[in-house]
């Protein structure tokens, strides 16, 4: 009995100690900035949840690769990469970001997977006058209602994904559309953006059906989409919903005479669905590893480390980190205002973007690609998933400045 009690006590002590050591480690102060001896980059991402494959460890690795390729130093000072798992909770994400800024002297945060986390971090970043380069989050609010002079939205946004897919498909002959939409603000805005693009390209929208978030059974929705006889069925949802919708569409034979177009599908979704199920699906990507020699070279290097091909988010983190470091070099300081001004005036040319540029509102404008998922027989090697159907010029893909709802960018 006594021994059992002792064991319990030592467990308590262990738990308490682990808490204390956490505090102690976080308490050692060291302010950042080149003036303080280092440039620190924080990769704030989801490592354990739903977006872990899209960003996660791969994003951390990508940032490290960028630092390594840059030589590990900028203006003679070392570059450090920090990372944290925000567990898809905005309060944890914002708390980590706050502590990084206040106590660790982090100069720039990137990835920022999950829109709620990214928006919370964006506010904080502006308050602390540092820089946020969002890659993982898709919300257009980052460069509209909630825009700040310290945010760059890098790899993609939901507007470009929806408009890229819908507008280009409609131009290429997919004129009649039917939408399968997640029944909340995100799905509705995705559908609205896509429907606008379809109409602008001379197409028509035959109807829509809304499904609840995280629906388990898609059969009735798929049957309605089938009955609509629309040429293209647009999927205005994401994550688990889109995967389930595509599976159901496949089982009901919808894909025989209609084409599925995903408004927000990632390569990780295609990977988890597998080519037999996903084949023929149209979607937009901001980057793909098998576009050209440069991207393939990066893809293979990344693959050696992570045993997975990089996603556009991870490639975006690499590119964003490089762009940021180059801007520091050119500006001669890590002062956020100076670096931001430098980033907004320099063209981005690397394996991720050709002639990309950061607009006044923080939107990084670069070409997007309309992809079609290959048939299993066409796929020659692992991760050989897409045929490039069209390149969408950045200025067409992204929301034009004239429609911007970003207050400070409108004034300047």
């Amino acid at each position, binding site marked *: 009995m006594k021994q059992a009690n002792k064991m319990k006590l030592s467990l308590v002590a262990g738990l*308490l100690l682990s*808490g204390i050591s956490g505090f102690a480690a*976080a308490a050692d102060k060291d302010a950042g900035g080149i003036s303080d001896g280092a440039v620190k980059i924080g990769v704030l991402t989801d490592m354990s949840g739903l977006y872990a494959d899209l960003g996660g460890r791969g994003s951390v690795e990508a940032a490290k690769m960028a630092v390594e390729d840059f030589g590990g130093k900028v203006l003679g000072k070392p570059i450090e990469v920090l990372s944290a*798992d925000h*567990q898809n909770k905005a309060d944890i994400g914002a*708390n980590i970001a706050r*502590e990084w800024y206040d106590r660790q002297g982090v100069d720039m945060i990137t990835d920022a997977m999950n829109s*709620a986390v990214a928006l919370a971090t964006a*506010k904080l970043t502006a308050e602390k006058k540092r820089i946020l380069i969002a890659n993982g989050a898709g919300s257009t609010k980052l460069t509209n209602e909630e825009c700040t002079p310290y945010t760059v939205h890098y790899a993609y946004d939901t507007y470009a994904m929806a408009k890229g897919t819908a507008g280009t498909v409609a131009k290429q002959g997919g004129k009649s559309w039917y939408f399968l939409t997640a029944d*909340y603000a995100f799905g509705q805005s995705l559908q609205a953006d896509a429907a606008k693009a379809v109409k602008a390209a001379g197409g028509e929208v035959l109807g829509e059906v809304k499904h609840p978030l995280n629906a388990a059974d898609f059969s009735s929705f798929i049957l309605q989409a089938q009955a609509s006889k629309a040429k293209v069925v647009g999927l205005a949802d994401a994550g688990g919903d889109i995967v389930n919708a595509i599976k159901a569409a496949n089982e009901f034979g919808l894909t025989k005479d209609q084409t599925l177009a995903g408004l927000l599908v990632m390569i990780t979704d295609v990977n988890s669905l597998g080519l037999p199920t996903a084949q023929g699906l149209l979607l937009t990507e901001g980057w793909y590893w098998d576009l050209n020699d440069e991207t393939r070279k990066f893809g293979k290097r990344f693959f050696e480390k992570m045993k997975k091909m990089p996603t556009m988010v991870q490639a975006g983190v690499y590119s964003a980190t490089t762009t940021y470091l180059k801007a520091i070099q050119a500006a001669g300081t890590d002062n956020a205002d100076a670096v931001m001004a430098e980033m907004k005036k320099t063209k981005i040319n690397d394996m991720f973007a050709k002639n990309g540029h950061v607009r006044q509102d923080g939107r990084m404008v670069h070409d997007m690609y309309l992809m079609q998922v290959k048939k299993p027989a066409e796929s020659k090697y692992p991760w050989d998933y897409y045929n490039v159907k069209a390149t969408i010029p950045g200025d067409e893909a992204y929301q034009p400045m004239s429609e911007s709802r970003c207050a400070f960018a409108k004034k300047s």
Partner: protein
Amino acid sequence: MKNRMPIVLLVLAVLGCLAPLAGLYPVFLMKGLCFALFACAFNLLIGYTGLLSFGHAAFFGTAGYVAGHFVKVWGWSPELGIILGAATSAGLGWLIGGLAIRRQGIYFAMITLALSQMLYFVCLQVPVTGAEDGMQGIPRGHLFGFIDLSSDLTLYYVVLAIFLAGYGLLQRVVNSPFGQVLKAIRENESRVLSLGYDVDRHKLLAFVLSAGLAGVAGATKTIVLGFETLTDVSWEMSGEVVLMTLVGGMGTLLGPVVGAFVIVSLQNYLADKVGAWVQVIIGSAFVLCVLALRKGIVGTIAARLQPKAINA
């Protein structure tokens, strides 16, 4: 036991005042205090009344949204936002509690879960919450119109005062005749009924109190962090508060405070050290507590200190 009450409160106050001076990060401490108050409020139900509510996130999150909206859009001062948030949660608690207390045990838990899930979907749908993007950019503002809260340290002491007030209130409630009846209900409901007490009214009042205090915690957290998201109304949050209470020790006043700080610090300080392992470690800590420390951290310590005490 009773005469020790003010001492515990005093020790907490002193510890709280000293914590930021010892180099602990004030925003982290504020978040911890908000969750501690939330867990204490929850503990009033599970620990002292024997009611397992599985929908407490509804009160925590609703108050956050209400306070956030009125502070951000209507320009209310933070204390009014918190009061209104808490009042809304108490009202909601009266509605949900009123329905749920008609059933017992697992059915009670399921009713609270179902109603809070309904609220989650309402929050997902209505435009004011910003759905999955969350309600962002809520200003901290000025307390009573003249105390500037933008300094972390000032805000910290305000939050500490709110927490101590909430904790003090709970301490008072638990040790009052009303609290005795609640404990009696936990031990033997039919006996209490036979003694002539109106069990339902006692349960409902406890529920409303708990919901209101959870609301204070949620609204305060929104003011501290400057945003409110769906996480706070999701069922995972309802689960987390159960976890905090169990790890700390349910049915002890101090337990939920310790539990909340253990869980929040695990989530925060492991996030940049072990990456994906955070969830696994939190899970294991929970399993460990259930297996080795049945009474939770505080409950076990209290039992060791005075082996004969029945109620810690």
